[in-house]
């Protein structure tokens, strides 16, 4: 008979099981699966289960995390070099810190040992492999579990052990199994370790019971289906039994696999589409370009002299008044720029909420700016409440940027003949600009163009392939603004070349031998498809080039100078702000 308050002793699993059997035979289940209610402190909330499921889903779709190949760690150690030395230094620092923890803290031996294993494993993960974002998320997840779940649910030494175990399984175990040709069904998606740990250490609830039951059914059907394919069992069952059972479980297994496959394929395809679209089409590479430095000033629209109209002190209920000058710096006076001006304010303590202001009596003010025009703008925010405000002026306008890239072409045989005599073709033809870079106008966004290194070599024989490419990028050029939307990109290439593998993006507007150029524009459908995506700083397109007319491209000189040109019309958002403090009315 046990008397007195509940015991607070902790026993490792085996000892605890024995203790449980001794104390009360019915406790053995609790003892082996978790902690006796009497000895347990706090268990975690169900949100840990959801977080684990989310992590598993993220691995499946976005992160693609599959642990760390321990062979890479060994390779890094054997290869040595600077990264290895940095890793060693980092690990030494960790060891020193660990030594402080051991010598200056009051911890049990078991606690120290388990914690040391977890820390050293973390340090190795951080330094001895190619660490990436997915690894960081998994590492952080494990440590959060340790801090917020394990430490609350069990004594420290066991929490430390759990951390070490979860790190080992998550980062190394699956890759070790895969390396040694382990069973294909033992992978992180079929055995989601975080999910199991979370489920085990969350508080008891009806939902948890349902979840546990589902997990048991799914895994039993999986295991059964797998076992029934093994020959060892065949002798103990009749043929009919075998066929029926096998068909039943195989059907269950097939259904599960089908469900997994279809879900994964669907999710992967949509995620890939999204990632490809955003990375390749809407983001992309910003190609090197030189801004037309000799242009007198920036082209486009400028918000100048934005500030308070006076130095009066604003009190609660006052109208905040901000003024500025809108300057039009268009290319010429014929194409006016329509500028939509808005203003609004945000309070620092309530920065998510926006208070719209009025510009010269309207919420949105449209101004047509010509060459060298300027317009006074005035913003009012009425009935201001107390606090620190940031008042914004925004000018939204469409603009067209232009850019070009010079390059050279020459007959391939002629080039080979010169090079075989060790003659530098550029020197031979007195070409001083040997590596031209693209040039762009000095507008809100700059155009960059890239093609193969000059000179482009044109084969005489049509059977010889000509391979080249052209890329165009549109990059934000101003600090105070944002490239909002791209309406069109027009690419003009030398006559004699054509764009290939870009039929879904560009269409040929015209090819004119008289002008010596072929022009392409973005397809309407492609613009629509990408219209609503936000562009941060750069958008680029790249296409292959095909040779269509050798003579036109080369002209009648030993080498030819040719230009790639591009222009893009886009929507640009220019923003300027000013800080204002509204005081309490006294």
């Amino acid at each position, binding site marked *: 008979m046990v008397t007195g308050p509940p015991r607070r002793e902790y026993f490792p699993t085996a000892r605890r099981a024995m203790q449980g059997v001794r104390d009360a035979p019915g406790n053995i289940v609790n003892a082996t699966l978790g902690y006796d209610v009497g000895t347990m402190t706090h268990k975690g909330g169900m949100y840990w289960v959801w977080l684990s499921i989310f992590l598993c889903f993220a691995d499946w779709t976005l992160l693609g995390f599959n642990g760390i190949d321990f062979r890479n760690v060994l390779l890094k150690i054997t290869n040595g070099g600077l990264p290895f030395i940095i890793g060693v230094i980092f690990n030494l620092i960790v060891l020193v810190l660990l030594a402080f923890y051991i010598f200056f803290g009051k911890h049990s031996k078991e606690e120290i040992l388990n914690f040391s294993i977890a820390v050293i494993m973390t340090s190795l993960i951080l330094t001895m492999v190619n660490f990436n974002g997915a690894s960081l998320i998994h590492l952080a997840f494990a440590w959060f579990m340790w801090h917020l779940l394990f430490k609350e649910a069990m004594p420290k030494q066991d929490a430390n052990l759990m951390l070490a175990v979860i790190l080992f399984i998550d980062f190394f175990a699956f890759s070790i199994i895969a390396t040694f040709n382990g069973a294909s069904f033992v992978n992180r998606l079929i055995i989601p370790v975080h999910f199991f740990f979370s489920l085990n250490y969350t508080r008891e609830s009806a939902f948890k019971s349902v979840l546990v039951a589902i997990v048991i059914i799914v895994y039993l059907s999986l295991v059964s289906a797998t076992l029934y394919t093994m020959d060892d069992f065949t002798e103990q069952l009749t043929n009919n039994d075998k066929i029926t059972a096998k068909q039943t479980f195989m059907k269950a297994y097939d259904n599960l696999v089908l469900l997994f496959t279809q879900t994964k394929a669907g999710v992967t395809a949509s995620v890939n589409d999204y990632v490809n679209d955003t990375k390749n089409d809407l983001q992309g590479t910003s190609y090197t370009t030189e801004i*037309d430095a*000799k*242009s*007198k*000033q920036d*082209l486009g629209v400028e918000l100048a002299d934005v500030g308070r109209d006076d130095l009066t002190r604003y009190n609660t209920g006052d109208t905040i008044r901000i003024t500025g000058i809108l300057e039009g*710096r268009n*290319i*010429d006076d014929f194409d006016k720029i329509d500028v939509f001006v808005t203003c609004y304010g945000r309070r620092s303590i309530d920065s998510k909420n926006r208070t719209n202001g009025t510009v010269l009596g309207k919420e949105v003010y449209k101004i047509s700016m010509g*060459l*060298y025009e300027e317009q006074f703008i005035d913003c009012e925010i009425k009935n201001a409440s107390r606090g620190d405000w940031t008042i914004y002026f925004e000018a939204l306008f469409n603009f*067209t*940027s*232009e850019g*070009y890239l010079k390059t050279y072409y020459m*007959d391939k*045989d*002629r080039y*080979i*003949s*010169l090079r*075989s*005599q*060790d*003659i530098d073709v550029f*020197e*031979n*033809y*007195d*070409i*001083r*600009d040997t590596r031209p870079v693209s*040039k762009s*106008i000095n*507008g809100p966004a700059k155009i960059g163009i890239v093609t193969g290194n000059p000179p482009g070599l044109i084969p*005489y024989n049509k059977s010889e392939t000509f391979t080249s490419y052209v890329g165009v990028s549109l990059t934000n050029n101003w600090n105070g603004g944002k490239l909002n939307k791209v309406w069109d990109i027009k690419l003009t290439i*030398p006559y004699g070349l054509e764009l290939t593998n870009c039929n879904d993006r560009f269409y040929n507007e015209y090819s004119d031998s008289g002008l*010596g150029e072929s022009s392409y524009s973005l397809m309407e459908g492609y613009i629509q498809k990408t219209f609503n995506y936000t562009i941060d700083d750069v958008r680029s397109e790249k296409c292959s080039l095909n040779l269509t007319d050798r*003579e036109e491209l*080369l*002209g*009648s*000189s*030993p080498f*030819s*100078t*040719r*230009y790639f*040109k591009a222009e893009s019309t886009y929507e640009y958002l220019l923003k300027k702000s000013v800080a204002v403090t509204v005081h309490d009315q006294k």
Partner: protein
Amino acid sequence: MIKNNQNKFLYLTILILLFGLISGCSSDDREIVVVDIHSGNGKVEIEFIENLPPSKAYASEELQIGFKAINYGAYEVKNGIISLVGDPGYLFFEDGLTSEEEITDLTAKSNYDPRDTEQFFIFDAKTAFPDKGFSEHESVLYVNYCYDYENVFNDQICVDPDQYNLKPVDNKVCQVSESSYSGQGGPVGISSITPKMILRDDDIYPQFRIHIRNFGTGQIFSTGQSDIFCGSESINRDFMNSIKIDKIEFSDMTLEDFDCFPDINDVVIRDREADIICTLKEGSSKRLRSIDEAYTTNLNIEFKYGYSESVSKTITLINQNDMIR
């Protein structure tokens, strides 16, 4: 009396004329300089006439491009072509992006008139500025010129039956030795001759190693190919860096009397240099009789080649729209 006076006046006039004549014939200390026209590495060069074209121009401006081709070398320019290449969209000619003319007036120098010859060229060009958002554009004008040229080499070569001094003789007239040269008035010339007198059965068979060098930076090609080299057509590699030896004369020997390697009709210049070894044919009736004393005789070598070079000039095109901003 009148007649006497007339005679006196006549004698006086003659005396004055004689005095003047004698005074005019007084000696001058200046030396008469004999110019060796077949020396150095002169070639055809292009010099732009100042401000043609100007270094800056505006859009839609009509320009004149002027330059002179100067023949600093010693030989006549044949089959010469000047080809101008504009800047597509920015700088062009009446004929389009390129314009071509022949070089006709660059004659050879002579000892009577060793002056450089010149030919002037004027081309009409027009500018455009299609990029309205830019302030300026650097347009490059290229001038490619191709022509046939020749080289004449003349020097005294020693014929010594005892080239290795097996029978030492006092006061030998000459010694067989390698001679170096810095060119014969063209960009491609003979830079050294290494003679060798091969003694066979008391007969002397002269052998010459001729070292040819491209002293300039231009490109060598076979004669008669100027239109191809200044055009865009593919070049037959056989025509590249190839020269043809037309004449070798030594004593009474001519080209036909020598066996040369490589073939004199296709001497290929590699890394700007080539060697040709020519030996008097075995058993030739023109072999030299072995004599006791050394003597010198003239060696004359002539060859032809095509030569091509390019020059460029940058014109800054200014966008008028930008000026008023």
